[in-house]
């Protein structure tokens, strides 16, 4: 199970998928995330039945990186030029004992919406809530998207790179 093989299978079975390989991971457009994940979960060959980890990442102002080779996926989506938020999903197979397959989704900071994986993997619920709480990624289709670590009255998303924490030393 190597990267090329997974890539070819994904392209074959998910129609209209624009896939970019970055190292060992796959960058998929947000419209096709659910479809790609469903294929990997239900296909006999992969059976990726376990979503181990959902990670949110903030890439602030990646304009400088755009021209570099290997950044074609970002370059293809011009709205990501002023920085983007990324959700990284690590899929494993408990049945076949293999993995991970890494699916990444990138959304612009101005409109950070992407589909939730909770309909496929119930275990994504709390992890997506955390990414929403700390980075402000809005997972559409999540059954209960609210803050999980910070309190309800809190404003802002503190793990964003441009977040400025309060000064506690004001009299």
């Amino acid at each position, binding site marked *: 199970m190597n990267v090329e093989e997974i890539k070819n299978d994904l392209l074959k079975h998910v129609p209209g998928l624009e896939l970019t390989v970055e190292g060992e991971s796959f960058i998929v457009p947000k419209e096709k995330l659910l479809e790609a994940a469903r294929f990997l979960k239900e296909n006999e060959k992969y059976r990726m039945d376990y979503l181990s980890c959902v990670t949110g990442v903030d890439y602030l102002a990646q304009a400088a990186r755009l021209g570099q080779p290997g950044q074609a996926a970002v370059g293809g989506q011009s709205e990501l030029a002023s920085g983007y938020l990324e959700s990284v999903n690590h899929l494993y197979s408990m049945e076949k004992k293999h993995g991970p397959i890494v699916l990444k989704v990138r959304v612009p900071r101005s409109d950070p919406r992407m589909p939730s994986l909770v309909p496929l993997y119930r275990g994504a619920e709390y992890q997506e809530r955390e990414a929403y709480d700390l980075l402000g990624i809005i997972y559409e289709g999540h059954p209960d998207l609210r803050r999980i670590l*910070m309190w309800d009255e809190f404003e802002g998303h503190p793990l964003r790179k441009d977040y400025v*924490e309060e000064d506690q030393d004001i009299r």
Partner: protein
Amino acid sequence: MAIDEGLNNELQKRGIFVTTLNDLYNWGRRSSIWPLQFGLACCAIEMIATACAKYDIARFGAELFRPSPRQADLMIVAGTVTKKMAPMVVRLYNQMPEPKYVISMGACAISGGPFRDGYNVLKGIDRYIPVDVHIPGCPPRPEALLDGLIKLQKKIDSQKIDQMDGYREEKSCEYPVPQYGKKGLEPRHNPDFFTPRLDWPEKNTKDNLRMPNYKPAPAPARAAGSPLPGQAATGGPSEQGVAPAQLAAQPPASEQGQ
């Protein structure tokens, strides 16, 4: 009223033991301090080690960790106090009966420690409740906690029953519980007994550390034929110039019994 020590010794040699009600009362209090059983982070592991057989806090009479604040005399704030947890810590403190004491254990509870610049960490529990003993360390060793406990016992020994805060009705032992705000806790500290230092720079930079009035000593002018700086005799101008500034630059969170 204290008893003359020489007289007391003389009397004890003859089999007569004299004390004051105050001393007897404080002896009882300091020898059976019941700590509140709660921990906030890794310092709590050291606190548990202190309570176990090897370090054995029972030697000092403080082994009875109570699960309820109503039965506790001492709150050991062991670990990082997050902004989310701080109101609960203050509420627990309010629920303890007088006389009550607080040990701030570890760098985090004193000042925020390594998480000081984080968005979620309170820069020291002494912003909301009065702390009797600060124990520095990250985390402090069990011996350090025992030392802090002994310092607290000395403080208890020095108190007068009729002048203690908790026994005077006009002195409130309740402290306001901070509320969750949009960016942090409101208020940011209790202005009745805490004032943040404003003479510190906003952020650490390479040239401007968070140390008040710190100026690196000028390099000593080296006359021709004089020894190299590494070979200079001890007590040269550079050492003398730096040492007082560094002493003054110690953060206020050092160990101190108030």
